Protein backbone atom coordinates (compact mmCIF):
# COMPACT_ATOMS: atom_id res chain seq x y z
CA UNK A 1 0.00 0.00 0.00
CA UNK A 2 1.06 3.59 -0.65
CA UNK A 3 0.43 5.97 2.24
CA UNK A 4 0.33 9.67 1.45
CA UNK A 5 0.64 12.31 4.16
CA UNK A 6 0.26 16.04 3.50
CA UNK A 7 -0.01 17.56 6.99
CA UNK A 8 2.82 18.95 9.12
CA UNK A 9 3.79 16.47 11.85
CA UNK A 10 3.90 19.33 14.37
CA UNK A 11 0.40 20.50 13.56
CA UNK A 12 -1.69 17.36 13.06
CA UNK A 13 -1.39 13.72 14.01
CA UNK A 14 -1.79 12.32 10.47
CA UNK A 15 1.93 11.51 10.28
CA UNK A 16 1.84 9.66 13.63
CA UNK A 17 -1.26 7.71 12.61
CA UNK A 18 0.33 6.78 9.32
CA UNK A 19 3.46 5.40 10.97
CA UNK A 20 1.37 3.54 13.54
CA UNK A 21 -0.92 1.91 10.99
CA UNK A 22 1.32 1.32 7.98
CA UNK A 23 2.32 -2.35 7.67
CA UNK A 24 5.82 -3.61 6.96
CA UNK A 25 6.87 -3.17 3.35
CA UNK A 26 4.50 -0.28 2.70
CA UNK A 27 5.55 2.93 1.02
CA UNK A 28 5.06 6.34 2.62
CA UNK A 29 5.05 9.47 0.49
CA UNK A 30 5.34 12.82 2.24
CA UNK A 31 3.98 15.83 0.33
CA UNK A 32 3.08 19.48 1.03
CA UNK A 33 3.49 20.36 4.73
CA UNK A 34 4.30 16.74 5.61
CA UNK A 35 7.75 17.13 4.05
CA UNK A 36 8.86 18.81 7.29
CA UNK A 37 8.69 15.32 8.86
CA UNK A 38 11.74 14.36 6.80
CA UNK A 39 13.91 17.32 7.85
CA UNK A 40 16.88 16.81 10.13
CA UNK A 41 16.72 17.85 13.75
CA UNK A 42 13.01 17.30 14.31
CA UNK A 43 11.25 14.75 16.51
CA UNK A 44 9.36 13.51 13.46
CA UNK A 45 12.62 12.77 11.65
CA UNK A 46 13.72 10.53 14.52
CA UNK A 47 10.41 8.64 14.29
CA UNK A 48 10.80 8.40 10.54
CA UNK A 49 14.37 7.17 10.83
CA UNK A 50 13.18 4.33 13.07
CA UNK A 51 10.25 3.55 10.77
CA UNK A 52 12.50 3.29 7.72
CA UNK A 53 13.56 -0.18 8.87
CA UNK A 54 10.11 -1.39 7.76
CA UNK A 55 8.88 1.25 5.35
CA UNK A 56 10.10 2.86 2.15
CA UNK A 57 9.93 6.60 2.55
CA UNK A 58 9.54 9.08 -0.32
CA UNK A 59 9.36 12.86 -0.28
CA UNK A 60 8.09 15.16 -3.01
CA UNK A 61 11.14 17.26 -3.88
CA UNK A 62 9.34 20.36 -5.23
CA UNK A 63 7.55 20.69 -1.87
CA UNK A 64 10.89 20.42 -0.03
CA UNK A 65 12.44 23.09 -2.25
CA UNK A 66 9.47 25.45 -1.93
CA UNK A 67 9.85 25.38 1.85
CA UNK A 68 13.60 26.04 1.86
CA UNK A 69 14.23 22.55 3.22
CA UNK A 70 16.16 21.00 0.31
CA UNK A 71 19.42 21.08 2.26
CA UNK A 72 18.00 19.46 5.39
CA UNK A 73 16.58 16.19 4.04
CA UNK A 74 17.03 13.19 6.32
CA UNK A 75 19.41 10.55 4.90
CA UNK A 76 17.78 7.45 3.47
CA UNK A 77 14.70 9.28 2.26
CA UNK A 78 13.99 9.04 -1.46
CA UNK A 79 13.27 12.29 -3.27
CA UNK A 80 10.74 12.09 -6.10
CA UNK A 81 9.32 14.60 -8.57
CA UNK A 82 5.73 14.68 -9.85
CA UNK A 83 6.53 11.91 -12.33
CA UNK A 84 7.80 9.79 -9.44
CA UNK A 85 4.56 10.52 -7.55
CA UNK A 86 2.56 9.16 -10.48
CA UNK A 87 4.80 6.10 -10.73
CA UNK A 88 4.33 5.35 -7.02
CA UNK A 89 0.57 5.62 -7.35
CA UNK A 90 0.64 3.32 -10.38
CA UNK A 91 2.93 0.74 -8.72
CA UNK A 92 0.70 0.24 -5.70
CA UNK A 93 -2.71 -1.41 -5.77
CA UNK A 94 -4.10 0.73 -3.02
CA UNK A 95 -3.44 4.20 -1.78
CA UNK A 96 -4.28 5.70 1.60
CA UNK A 97 -4.31 9.47 1.96
CA UNK A 98 -4.02 10.59 5.59
CA UNK A 99 -6.10 13.74 5.38
Amino acid at each position, binding site marked *: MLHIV*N*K*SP*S*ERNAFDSCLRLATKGSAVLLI*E*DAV*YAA*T*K*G*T*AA*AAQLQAAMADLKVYVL*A*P*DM*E*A*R*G*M*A*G*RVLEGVNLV*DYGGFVDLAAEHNTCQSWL
Partner: protein
Amino acid sequence: MDEASEGVVKKFMFLNRKAPYGTIYALESLEVVLISAAFDQDVSLAFVDDGVYQIVKGQHTKGIDQKNFSPTYRALEGYDIEKLYVEKEGLEARGLTEDDLLVDVTVLSAAEMANLMAEQDVVISF
Protein backbone atom coordinates in the same frame (compact mmCIF):
# COMPACT_ATOMS: atom_id res chain seq x y z
CA MET B 1 -13.68 57.35 13.09
CA ASP B 2 -14.73 59.74 15.86
CA GLU B 3 -12.40 62.36 17.27
CA ALA B 4 -11.83 60.62 20.56
CA SER B 5 -10.48 57.46 18.92
CA GLU B 6 -8.36 59.29 16.38
CA GLY B 7 -4.65 59.00 16.98
CA VAL B 8 -4.97 56.21 19.51
CA VAL B 9 -2.11 53.76 19.09
CA LYS B 10 -2.82 50.21 20.14
CA LYS B 11 -0.49 47.28 20.46
CA PHE B 12 -1.34 44.77 17.76
CA MET B 13 0.23 41.35 17.53
CA PHE B 14 -0.08 39.09 14.52
CA LEU B 15 0.46 35.56 15.76
CA ASN B 16 1.65 33.21 13.00
CA ARG B 17 1.48 29.49 13.70
CA LYS B 18 1.16 27.86 10.26
CA ALA B 19 3.70 26.73 7.69
CA PRO B 20 3.61 28.51 4.32
CA TYR B 21 2.13 27.05 1.09
CA GLY B 22 0.24 24.08 2.58
CA THR B 23 -2.50 26.43 3.72
CA ILE B 24 -3.33 30.05 2.90
CA TYR B 25 -2.90 31.37 6.47
CA ALA B 26 0.69 32.62 6.13
CA LEU B 27 0.03 34.62 2.98
CA GLU B 28 -3.26 36.02 4.31
CA SER B 29 -1.53 37.11 7.50
CA LEU B 30 1.22 38.85 5.55
CA GLU B 31 -1.33 40.76 3.46
CA VAL B 32 -3.23 41.90 6.55
CA VAL B 33 0.05 42.97 8.16
CA LEU B 34 0.95 45.08 5.10
CA ILE B 35 -2.46 46.74 5.13
CA SER B 36 -2.30 47.31 8.88
CA ALA B 37 0.91 49.30 8.37
CA ALA B 38 -1.21 52.12 6.93
CA PHE B 39 -2.89 52.67 10.32
CA ASP B 40 0.28 53.59 12.22
CA GLN B 41 -0.27 51.18 15.06
CA ASP B 42 2.29 49.47 17.28
CA VAL B 43 2.56 46.23 15.34
CA SER B 44 4.44 43.09 16.37
CA LEU B 45 4.75 39.85 14.46
CA ALA B 46 5.21 36.62 16.35
CA PHE B 47 6.29 33.36 14.77
CA VAL B 48 5.40 30.36 16.89
CA ASP B 49 5.11 26.61 16.16
CA ASP B 50 5.11 25.94 12.39
CA GLY B 51 4.92 29.70 11.83
CA VAL B 52 8.72 29.84 12.06
CA TYR B 53 8.83 27.99 8.73
CA GLN B 54 7.41 31.11 7.04
CA ILE B 55 10.68 33.00 7.39
CA VAL B 56 13.15 30.24 6.56
CA LYS B 57 15.79 31.14 3.96
CA GLY B 58 16.14 29.47 0.60
CA GLN B 59 12.50 28.98 -0.43
CA HIS B 60 12.12 28.15 -4.13
CA THR B 61 8.52 27.66 -5.19
CA LYS B 62 8.88 27.31 -8.95
CA GLY B 63 8.29 23.56 -8.69
CA ILE B 64 4.93 23.92 -6.93
CA ASP B 65 3.69 26.78 -9.11
CA GLN B 66 2.91 29.06 -6.18
CA LYS B 67 4.18 32.55 -5.47
CA ASN B 68 7.25 32.66 -3.23
CA PHE B 69 6.20 35.37 -0.79
CA SER B 70 9.14 34.93 1.57
CA PRO B 71 11.05 37.96 0.13
CA THR B 72 8.15 40.16 1.22
CA TYR B 73 9.04 39.68 4.89
CA ARG B 74 12.19 41.64 4.12
CA ALA B 75 10.05 44.56 2.90
CA LEU B 76 8.37 44.91 6.31
CA GLU B 77 11.16 47.13 7.60
CA GLY B 78 10.28 49.68 4.91
CA TYR B 79 6.70 49.58 6.22
CA ASP B 80 8.05 50.43 9.70
CA ILE B 81 7.19 46.98 10.97
CA GLU B 82 10.35 46.07 12.78
CA LYS B 83 9.19 44.03 15.76
CA LEU B 84 9.55 40.41 14.73
CA TYR B 85 9.66 37.74 17.40
CA VAL B 86 10.36 34.03 17.17
CA GLU B 87 9.74 31.48 19.86
CA LYS B 88 13.00 29.76 20.81
CA GLU B 89 11.35 26.44 21.59
CA GLY B 90 9.60 26.40 18.20
CA LEU B 91 12.83 27.14 16.38
CA GLU B 92 14.78 24.44 18.20
CA ALA B 93 12.09 21.79 17.80
CA ARG B 94 12.46 22.25 14.05
CA GLY B 95 16.24 21.92 14.03
CA LEU B 96 16.56 25.59 13.05
CA THR B 97 18.65 28.49 14.32
CA GLU B 98 18.41 32.25 13.88
CA ASP B 99 20.91 31.95 11.00
CA ASP B 100 18.35 29.95 9.01
CA LEU B 101 15.94 32.91 8.97
CA LEU B 102 15.75 35.53 6.23
CA VAL B 103 14.92 38.50 8.45
CA ASP B 104 16.33 39.89 11.69
CA VAL B 105 14.25 38.68 14.60
CA THR B 106 14.28 38.71 18.37
CA VAL B 107 14.28 35.18 19.75
CA LEU B 108 12.15 34.83 22.89
CA SER B 109 11.61 31.95 25.28
CA ALA B 110 8.05 30.67 25.57
CA ALA B 111 7.72 32.50 28.89
CA GLU B 112 8.88 35.79 27.34
CA MET B 113 6.55 35.29 24.38
CA ALA B 114 3.68 34.67 26.78
CA ASN B 115 4.38 37.97 28.53
CA LEU B 116 4.62 39.82 25.23
CA MET B 117 1.25 38.40 24.17
CA ALA B 118 -0.28 39.39 27.47
CA GLU B 119 0.84 43.01 26.93
CA GLN B 120 -1.05 43.38 23.65
CA ASP B 121 -4.32 45.21 23.14
CA VAL B 122 -5.19 42.99 20.20
CA VAL B 123 -3.84 39.61 19.10
CA ILE B 124 -4.77 38.50 15.61
CA SER B 125 -4.18 34.82 15.07
CA PHE B 126 -3.32 33.06 11.82
